[in-house]
Structures are given as structure tokens and as C-alpha cells.
């Protein structure tokens, strides 16, 4: 199978990455060579194989619902790309 320009634009949209025509063409080429390489997996019969999601053979642990990080609010807000010191600010969402 081949990945065409339309597909590249569709997955770029899904991934929230803007892509212009020229870049989309190059990406389509790259992705096709990568997927050609990936398609080797189809040689294997995996009908009866259980998928492996994690090699760590552990159940998720429960812990007490308490917080440990103290007074880092200001430090966190300082990393915000907007200058505002009290909130995270984003472009207008509701018209």
C-alpha cells in the first residue's frame, strides 16, 4: 500500500501539525519507504498470538490519595509561554 498526499494531510491534521504542500510531498516519500520496511511483519502468522503491551509483569499499584509536591504553583506558572502570572492564557475559544 502507498501513503498519498491526502493521507499525509489527514494524519497531520489529526496530529495537529501544520504541513505545507512541499513538506507533505517529502513526508509522503519518507513514510512510504518506512512503511515498505515495516510491511515485512506481514510474513508472520500472528493469528493465535496474544499482544504484548508491557514487558513488566506487574499490576498497577494503589496508593493513598495525597499530594507530595508543595508550593510549586509559581514555578509551574513561570514556564507558561504567556506572561500572565496567575493563569494559563490561550487564544479565545468560545465566540
Amino acid at each position, binding site marked *: 500500500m502507498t*501513503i498519498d498526499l491526502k*493521507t*499525509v494531510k489527514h*494524519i*497531520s491534521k*489529526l*496530529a*495537529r*501539525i*501544520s*504541513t505545507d504542500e512541499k513538506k507533505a510531498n517529502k*513526508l509522503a516519500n*519518507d*513514510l512510504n*519507504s*518506512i512503511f515498505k*520496511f*515495516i*510491511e*515485512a*511483519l*506481514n*510474513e*508472520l502468522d*500472528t493469528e493465535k*498470538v*496474544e*499482544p*504484548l*503491551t*508491557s*514487558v*513488566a509483569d*506487574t499490576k*498497577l*499499584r494503589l*496508593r493513598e490519595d495525597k499530594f507530595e*509536591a508543595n508550593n*510549586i504553583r509559581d*514555578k*509551574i506558572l*513561570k*514556564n*507558561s*509561554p*504567556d506572561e500572565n502570572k496567575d493563569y*494559563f492564557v*490561550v*487564544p*479565545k*475559544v468560545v465566540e
Partner: protein
Amino acid sequence: MSDITKLSLNELIQNIRNKKLSSTEITNSFIERSEKSKKLNTYVTDNFSSALEAAKIFDEKPNMDLKLPGIPIAVKDLFCTNGVRTTAGSNILNNFIPPYESTVTQSMWDEGAILLGKLNCDEFAMGSSNETSFFGNVQNPIGENLVPGGSSGGSSAALAANLTPVTIGTDTGGSIRQPASFTGTVGLKPTYGSCSRYGIVAFASSLDQAGPMSQNVKDAALLLEVISKFDNKDSTSIDFKRNKYSSELTNNIKGLKIGIPNEYRVEGMPKEIEDLWKKGIEIIKDCGAEIVDISLPTTKYALPTYYIVAPAEASSNLARYDGVKYGFRSEGENLIDMYEKTRSEGFGEEVKRRILIGTYVLSSGYYDAYYLKAQKVRQLIKKDFDNVYNNVDAILTPSTPSSAFKIGEKTDDPVSMYLNDIFTVPVNLAGLPGISIPAGIDNKGFPLGLQIIGKPFDEQTILNIAYSMEEKINFKNNITDWWM
């Protein structure tokens, strides 16, 4: 002492404990040499003035019982360091200052180590040559215009150039072992779940592991002992009984069975690599261990599996970089436009390529054909290892299919770049420990490494094998300080 920076970690510790050297003297030496080595581009952010202050404080009241007393160490810029910029080699995190510390680095500071700085790496650890970093290429100290490997390329280069006595990297598909092999150093990827992932910028969560990089095996054992511990803050951290890796280190490997996987004789493998492997086999025999031919039939499917699993996890992990709470933001006409511009300008080409692969294989209609298929093949790869470990204690392979290549040589062809990790990727998919040790040089004089793969949680055995082999190989890096 004139050559402080050439001392190994264990030698430095001995000198500090004997009061022959102070932490300040040592820290100063590494800073001076680092200042003269800017051409290598190993540091993204230095922490030199704070390091000197910390060294002074240590010297005023030295605690010699600590495992890393007053030792300055630079780390890969993928570990969050409280109050010190952490970029992951990306423009999107260019100005990010973490308000918390990664567990692995905290464990080092708790044992007396001092942060020297943050080392360059491929963007979000995606690369095998350090060429995808927003902060530029890193030069390999073994020769001009050679890549240092990746993604822990700043780490391997800084270590080989004696800018830090040891370092830590992260390894998702080979990112510790391949750069170690390219720079004539030692790199160990621990069993998945050994070292906490808390505070490490995430790439592919089911594969990522932190691990030590060092001049020799003994140093790696000591650093592993410091950073390998159970951590409640990482839900995949495993509570198993860890060895005292450094004090239990022995060169007695008599009677161990070492497997040689037939499938690692890949098509087009240079004869030098084949010869190096044969040399390794002879050394193992010399050490009194037994060589066993084994088969890992699904080996050739490991890379294609990896290039579905890792991008899928990455596309999900990297969804958090949206320009809202931290990191780079590009202004847009509306919210969606802001997201799309931020991510398009903030991420480099390789990262975007992998996010798109991941988005595609997880998207509706393709999930079963790609992602589920890859998870099933991953099961088969793991079973291959489970089977052979009924008969052998460890496995010996080459670390990489070539020595260090030229900067720019493989950047236009993603698949040829990916092939670098052909011998290291299966180890991550199966969650096993693996170590690369320098084992020889090729006809260009560049270092080549051998990899020892162990059973889960059996880091001690691969360290012991590496230690025994190291003694007999007696590898010396030929570094001329050409960049000064």
C-alpha cells in the same frame, strides 16, 4: 595531579576518600577541560558556577560514606533537573525549567554527586547520531566530523573526551549502547523497570530506560548501584532484590553458558564486525565460559516492530506539547491554529516524522493492521529470548553493524539510519538488560563494541562477563584532543 580528568570514577572516589584530591579540585578540572572543548558541542546547558559552590560546600564538611562523594557528573538533557533548564534537545522545550527532579538524578545527588551540566542529545531521544538535536551536531572526540552515536551522543562524547567522569543516558532502542560503541566507552541499559522513569522526558514509555555510561565496567557497576532502585512515582518500577553490583563484581565466569545467535549474522555485515565477534567468542572461551549456538528466529522483525511501537507511544506522549502550559508557543488565529503552528515550528523533522507514523498506525482502520500486529510480533520476540534463556545465561552479539560514520552521511535516508539499531532494538522490545563494551578498532582506527545481553534482572551476570572480557581485551581509546 595534572591528569585529574583522565581518572576513572573509582579512582576519583579513592583520591577524594584519601584526601589527595578535593571535590573543588576535581570539579575545577572538569570545568576547565569542558571550557576548552566547546567545539565538541556536548553541553546544552552548563551548571559550572553552581557545581563549584556545591563542591565547596562538600569540601567543608565531606561525607566520605556516600557512594559518589563530591563527584561532578554531567547528564543527558532528557532528565528533569529542578531549577536547571531541561530541553530534550528540542526547540519546543527551549525555555523549560522543571520545578522537580527526576528520581534517577536525585539518587545521584543523594549519594554526593554534583550536577556539572546537561548534555546534548537527539531531539526527544529520537535519532542514532545526535544530528536531530535543535542545538546542533555533536563531534565525536575519536575523530573530526564523525557522529558520536545517539541519542545519548552528548553523553558519549563528553565521557570519551573526559569532560565528565561518568554520565547517564537513556536507551529506548539502543541510545546508550550504540553511542558507547561509537566512542569506545561502556554503556549499560538495565532491565525495564529497574531505574525509575519519573522525571525523564518520555519518548516511548514501554521501552525507555535510564542507564550508566562510563570508562570502564567497574564504574558502570557502581553508578548502576546508585540509580537502580524501586520508585513509587513510576507505576512500571519493579520492586525486586537488587545486587550490590560493584562489590559483587567478579571476573570469575567459569561454567557460564553464553549464546551466539545465528540470526545476528545479518546480510551485508562488514567482515570487521564478524571478526570482532569471533574475537569476543575466543575471549569468552578463554575466561572459562562455554559457547552455545542459539537461534532467535524473529530477530529480523524487531526493527519493523520497533518502528511501529515506538512512534505510536511517542505520538501519544508528545501530544502534551501544545504551547499552552509550558514550552514554545507560536501565535495563531485561533486555538487550533496555535496548536498546529506551535507543533510544526517547535518540533524538528525527525520528531514530526515519527509523530505522523505513530498517528497513522494508531488511527481508525489501521490500528489492527499495524499497532496490534506489532504488539503480537513483540510477544514472539520476547518468547524467543525466554526460550533461549532456558539454556544459556547470557548472549554475545556485536553492538552495532558499523563504527562511527560521518556527520551528514545518513541524514537523507531514515531507513538506513534506523538500521544502526538492528542489534540493540530486540533487547528493548523484550525488556532485557544489555551492555556494550569497547572490544576493538576497525581499519579506520574507530572503536567497535560488543554487546552482552542478560536475563531480566540479571545485570550482575552481564557486568561480570563484561568485566572479565574487559580485562583480556585491554582496550585503549586513542584520543588526540584534536578539537583544542
